[in-house]
């Protein structure tokens, strides 16, 4: 009998406290989405909490860009991390739930094509060569399995390919930029969810080629060789400067955060978003991505403060855009 009383009592408190909780407004900023942008958001969140001495809490998840937008368009999170612009079907599902947003570019990533340092024959590749290598084999043609099939001066050895898995935003952007159609890629390569697998694979195989975000190259420069990309205006090796000056094309990609306008009306979310844009220049560089110029962040800030809703991409994937162009366009819902 005593035990039963105890159980009833405990469950009573339990239900009471849960009830009380739902009335309490918590100052939490919820962010979720891309694992690429996560590294930047984590840095911002850490610094923001330090500066607020813990009075505002920030949580960041990694659901992937698509997963992030799914939650964002259900109104579950305040900010979505995205390594590509919002797509048409995501625009529609946000519209259905009457969720509006401000699109803020926050930095660049440079997709880097790497080979083994022992590979002496390739120093640069044209976009056409990369396309030939990565596109799904056109009907009636033999698939490319050896280096000399791309360029006759290269050796007749087997080529092994590494890259990110099909769920990754990096994969989406690379296929769009190189092959010309999003998600269109040959399938006989080693896909990995963790880019370190590609690092290890290419570092251990003379005939390998792979691609991933710049940070994975800059941490492993001693084990890998980056390939200069020729998009018709001469070869450009990926570097901080080349990305900043907009010459590393078409593999520089902008990264975004999307802020819910309803949330933006709350003081703590607004403070966080402002803090994000104000500190992006240093923090983006800290986590090995490429920041914009100060003047460009000022334009981003104008977009945030003016609460300019919508996207400038109209749901279509585009590759090779310079940040100036992106910022000069007017966002549309």
């Amino acid at each position, binding site marked *: 009998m005593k035990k039963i009383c105890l159980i009833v009592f405990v469950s009573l408190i339990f239900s009471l406290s849960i009830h009380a909780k739902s009335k309490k407004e918590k100052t939490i900023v919820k962010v979720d989405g891309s694992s690429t942008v*996560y590294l930047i958001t984590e840095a911002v969140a850490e610094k923001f*909490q330090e500066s607020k001495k813990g009075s505002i809490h920030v949580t960041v998840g990694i659901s992937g860009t698509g997963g992030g937008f799914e939650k964002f368009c259900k109104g579950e999170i305040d900010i979505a991390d995205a390594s590509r612009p919002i797509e048409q079907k995501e625009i529609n599902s946000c519209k259905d739930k009457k969720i509006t947003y401000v699109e803020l570019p926050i930095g660049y990533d440079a997709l880097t094509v790497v080979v083994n340092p022992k590979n002496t024959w390739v120093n640069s590749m044209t976009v056409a060569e990369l396309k030939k290598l990565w596109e799904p084999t056109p009907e009636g043609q033999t698939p490319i399995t050896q280096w000399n099939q791309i360029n006759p001066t290269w050796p007749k050895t087997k080529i092994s390919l590494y890259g990110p898995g099909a769920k990754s935003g990096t994969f989406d952007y690379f296929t769009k930029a190189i092959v010309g159609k999003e998600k269109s890629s040959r399938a006989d390569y080693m896909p990995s969810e963790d880019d370190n697998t590609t690092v290890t694979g290419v570092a251990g195989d003379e005939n390998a080629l792979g691609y991933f975000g710049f940070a994975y190259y800059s941490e492993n420069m001693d084990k890998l060789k980056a390939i200069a990309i020729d998009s018709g205006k001469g070869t450009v090796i990926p570097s901080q400067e080349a990305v900043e000056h907009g010459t590393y094309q078409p593999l520089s990609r902008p990264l975004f955060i999307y802020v819910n306008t309803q949330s933006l009306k709350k003081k703590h979310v607004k403070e966080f978003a402002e803090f994000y844009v104000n500190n992006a220049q240093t923090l983006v560089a800290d986590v090995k991505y490429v920041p914009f110029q100060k003047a460009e962040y000022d334009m981003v800030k104008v977009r945030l403060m003016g609460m300019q809703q919508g996207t400038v991409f109209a749901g279509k994937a585009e590759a090779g855009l310079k940040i100036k162009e992106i910022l000069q366009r007017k966002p549309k819902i």
Partner: protein
Amino acid sequence: MTAEIMKDIKKKIYEHKIYDRVFSLIGVILTFMVLMVLFVLLIDLMRNGVPRLSVSFFTSYPSRFANRAGILSAWVGTILVMTVTAIAAVPIGVAAGIYLEEYARKNWITNLIEINITNLAGVPSIIYGLMALGIFVYQLELGQSILTAGLTLSLLILPIVIVSTREALRTIPIGIREAAQAAGATKWQVVKDHLVPYSAGGVFTGIIIALSRAIGETAPLLTIGALTFIAFLPDSPFMGEFPYISFDWLLSPFTVMPIQMFNWVSRPQIDFHKNAAAAGCVLIFMSIGMNALAMYLRYKYRKKIQW
């Protein structure tokens, strides 16, 4: 003639003994190989991780600097989620086990239940995550919280708890039940005073092994929305004012050890990989600790039993 037969038989026996030896040798070699792999993995993990272990590693939140990052939110999250899992799974699992073993009539419904439980134990964990996302997160509106995570994992381990409870009950000789009933005990008295205490060791072992499976789960927790960066702890369960105990922590967002580890492993910087190894060591110590506890409890309860 007889000598010849004897010789034949001896030869046969000799041959068979050789097969015996060969088989046991193969067994030893295979066991040794498996253990070697495990040891190499463990040693590699320790070599990378142990130098990183320090007090501040346990008391720091995740950070963009590898040497400042720690697992505070992760280990607190893991312990809280495991507590909820145990509280939810143990009473239901043990009760279901006792019912199926002692009370249930052998008919088609019982058979159906038994088949389902066995099958449930083999369902991939991400399926539980998807179901929990639909039921706990959206239907019951529990949110992406410690409570949801705990309940999800408790569903995951429920079949294991049920099966091990039944196994433990089966090891009790039928004579015990008959003797107690002969002395006039009701079924409930038999269960309460004899079966439960005698099987406690086995039941505890089952529970702890189930929990040490749950502690390493990532997939279902990611599905329901476990976070990766969280630099604050859930509210304390104790308060200074009425009603003194708070359950707010149940609805708090969280992360757990394996998720934190996975995040660190997939980063480009090698220093984060060392953090991941260190977190791996902690996780392994946690589950070795739980297994040791299981062994101790089994030993303790077995010693108490006097038939």
